């Protein structure tokens, strides 16, 4: 395994409610604004007070897409942080802790730098929550960051709250900074520089929110459920700018029913949830299928079954998403692997929902939704400024009588926005005639089933995308196969590996073109599926949808995201 030369992983731990998320976020911003490439991840139990929260930032001079296993800097804001995470410390690691808060371990492999937080707080007459700012300043000094940047960022962050609050935060941070400098620790070799342009760093939920806004989504309904809830908060906060109506409805059944109503009435609509809430929505998904009402469903997975591990991560709802809803109807499932793909595919999801007049599911998971990573600005601006494609949405009937469910060659019929003069139709949950009236006639039934399913074929021919391929199959010792957030893990693993490898990454996971997919798989190559679940769901999907059987899968289902080092270690097992 190649060692990381310049990169470092910084981690802070504190009891829930101590504001550790702010410390982490600000530290990450300092790194990114100083030219670092960052990847952040926060872990927290499903508690508001008293649990152990952590935030880690991996920073390198070259692109990163996962955190690293070894913790280089560990900041302990409680007594248990060191115990919880010391197994990830190495001989060059540095631990910041307050000797007044706990015993200082002796004869450790790693270095301990005492940070007198309690003493400083007393001296500054600051509230205990300010321990965060002391830790932030101390951390920034430890990695060799510029003092002025720290002061500026705090001014930028707290300016709205007034001069006094800003000054207190700045004082605490600079005292923390100075306290570390005074102990002249070993200098970090990180090549800090000033960013030419402010980098864009965000999580998957942020990227979905941007995609929805750019796609002209005008109605978003949701019922809070981790890890999708921040989309609801973000879009709600943007309402004044976007004029979107964002509704927190009574339950997930109401959520999707409302969205289908809004979509029928003519506005692009979406809902967001996690597995349990999605389970409640599936009956309506089927209504969307038969009545051909466009809808975008954002599902951020977390470990199930049932309530499972609410604040942790897993990729275990792929098959559920693909096969959700009773009856047979077309459905499109997209699984972005990073924030760039999330923005692009979220926007595309609204187009596809309109073009094919059917549900489109955008799958995320806690790891992708809440990890912060770099977004390519130029690509994002391009995606966001591209005009939406509303498909065959019409505002007045092109001919009378208007046939809402006209059986066309490609399965797509014109969708008239209600209120147009001179005609009417219904979005019928019963089987219907071309003119939308209810029918039980076997021939009409067959015609409509075929009309709807034809849309799936049309999609495969016109909009479905092959998985992306990175690396050369001919040279590769291993060909990784991923969907969704495993992309991040494998990208980082391939940076650590010395052997040549290739990577097939699925985004347009369902439906898929059997013949085209089968061309990617040859008997003499070593394919390795990487899935953050126990059963290998893409593996199952590939067997059933493409007739491809991948023998080796690297699994993880303890609620934690993969470390890329784990992937590299698992490969060593195949070599034996």
């Amino acid at each position, binding site marked *: 395994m190649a060692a990381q030369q310049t990169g470092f992983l910084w981690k802070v731990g504190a009891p829930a409610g101590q504001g550790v998320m702010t410390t982490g976020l600000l530290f990450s911003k300092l790194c990114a604004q100083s030219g670092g490439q960052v990847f952040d991840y926060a872990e927290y139990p499903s508690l508001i007070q008293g649990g152990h929260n952590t935030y880690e930032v991996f920073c390198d001079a070259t692109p990163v897409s996962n955190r690293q296993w070894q913790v280089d800097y560990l900041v302990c804001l409680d007594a248990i942080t060191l115990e919880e995470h010391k197994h990830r410390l190495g001989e060059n690691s540095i631990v910041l802790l307050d000797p007044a808060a706990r015993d200082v371990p002796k004869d450790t492999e790693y270095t301990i730098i005492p940070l007198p937080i309690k003493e400083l707080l007393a001296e500054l007459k600051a509230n205990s929550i300010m321990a965060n700012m002391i830790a932030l300043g101390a951390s920034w000094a430890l990695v060799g960051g510029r003092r002025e940047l720290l002061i500026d960022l705090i001014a930028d962050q707290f300016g709205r709250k007034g001069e006094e609050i800003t000054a207190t935060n700045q004082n605490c941070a600079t005292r923390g900074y100075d306290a570390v400098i005074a102990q002249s620790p070993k200098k970090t070799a990180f090549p800090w520089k000033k960013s030419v342009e402010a980098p864009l760093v965000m999580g998957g939920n942020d990227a979905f929110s941007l995609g929805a806004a750019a796609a002209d989504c005008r*109605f978003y309904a949701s019922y809070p459920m981790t890890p999708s809830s921040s989309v609801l908060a973000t879009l709600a906060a943007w309402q004044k700018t*976007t004029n*979107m109506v964002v509704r927190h409805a009574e339950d997930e059944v*109401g959520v999707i029913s409302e969205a*289908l*109503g*809004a979509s029928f009435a003519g506005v692009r609509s979406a809902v967001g949830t996690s597995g349990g809430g999605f389970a409640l929505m599936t009956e309506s998904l089927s209504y969307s299928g038969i009545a051909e009402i466009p809808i975008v469903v954002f599902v951020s997975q977390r470990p199930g079954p049932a309530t499972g591990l609410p604040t942790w991560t897993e990729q275990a709802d792929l098959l559920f998403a693909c096969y959700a809803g009773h009856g047979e109807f077309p459905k499109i499932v997209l699984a972005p692997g990073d924030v760039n793909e999330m923005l692009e595919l979220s926007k595309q999801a609204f187009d596809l929902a309109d073009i094919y007049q059917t549900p489109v599911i955008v799958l995320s998971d806690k790891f992708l939704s809440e990890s912060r990573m770099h977004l390519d600005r130029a690509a994002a601006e391009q995606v966001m400024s591209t005009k939406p494609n509303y498909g065959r949405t019409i505002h007045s009937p092109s001919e009378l009588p208007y046939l809402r469910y006209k059986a066309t060659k490609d399965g797509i019929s014109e969708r008239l926005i209600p*209120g147009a003069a001179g005609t009417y139709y*219904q979005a019928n949950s019963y089987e219907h005639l071309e003119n939308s009236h209810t029918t039980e006639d076997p021939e009409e039934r067959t015609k409509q089933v075929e009309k709807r399913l034809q849309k799936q074929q049309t999609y495969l021919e016109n909009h479905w995308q092959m998985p992306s391929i990175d690396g050369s199959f001919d040279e590769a010792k291993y060909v990784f196969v991923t969907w969704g957030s495993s992309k991040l893990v494998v990208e980082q693993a391939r940076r650590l590996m010395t052997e040549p490898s290739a990577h097939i990454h699925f985004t347009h996971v369902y439906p898929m073109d059997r013949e085209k997919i089968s061309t990617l798989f040859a008997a003499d190559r070593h394919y390795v599926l990487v899935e953050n679940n126990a059963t290998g769901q893409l593996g199952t999907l590939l067997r059933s949808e493409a007739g491809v059987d991948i023998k080796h899968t690297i699994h993880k289902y303890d609620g934690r995201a993969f470390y890329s080092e784990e992937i590299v270690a698992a490969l060593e097992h195949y070599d034996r």
Partner: protein
Amino acid sequence: MIDNQPSSLDFTGYTPTWCAGCGNWGIGKAVELALKKQQLSPDGVIMLFDIGCSGNMNDFINAYAMHTLHGRALATAVGVKIANHKLPVLVTGGDGALYGEGGNHFLHACRGNHDLTVIVHDNSVYGLTTGQVSPTASKGKKSKSTPSGIIERPVNPLLLALTQGATFVAQGFTAQLPQLAELITAGMQHKGLAIINVLQPCVTFNKENTYAYYIKNTYKLPEDHDKSNFAQALEQAQSVFAERFPLGILYETTRPTYQEELPQLENHSLVKRGQIKNVVELLQQFE
């Protein structure tokens, strides 16, 4: 307010498949009368039909419509009205749909005062599934699903609507067609959530709550009933516990509708407004 164009379209759709004598006939007719009286036309109104015998009206009355899933007509209507608050939106469904399967949506639609007119076909049975008890069935009622008699006491729809915040609460009887058409018209003219519970016999599966039963047990609200008085409305609604059913508008009050409270809808309906500009600027939040 109403985005309506004159047209030659007719509300009358297919001939209903309801049983001869079914209370739905009267309700269907009253809905049509109310729509015509307001000079609406099928292209200027959105109707939401729930599932059940009542919901089958989807093919008997012509309009822009959604024939939704069971229990979801009201929740779906909430979204319709937010997307296009300029069009009148009617919800039609049974007591099983509105008070049972979709009970939670009912509570919250009342709280929100969404500008919708909800017509509940209350016949105390599930007709389309051949006669099981519904949420308004009297205690002890025997049915296929309750052979020893239902244990629960019935839902009181009027009290439920009143206490949860509906701003218009009325009760009609299918056999009193002119009054019912007036109640529906008044409900549609009302700004906010209008609940109209309509008593209707199921001539096939309910041998107790017959026309004769309702003629005997319904009464006109007293002349001096003050529909703006919440306490009086509550009192009248309680007579249902003694199997006495008031007919008329029990309660009407003014409260801003959900749509009126959304600044996004101030100038244009959501469906008619233009696309937002400068969406790229949102990226700045992530610098």
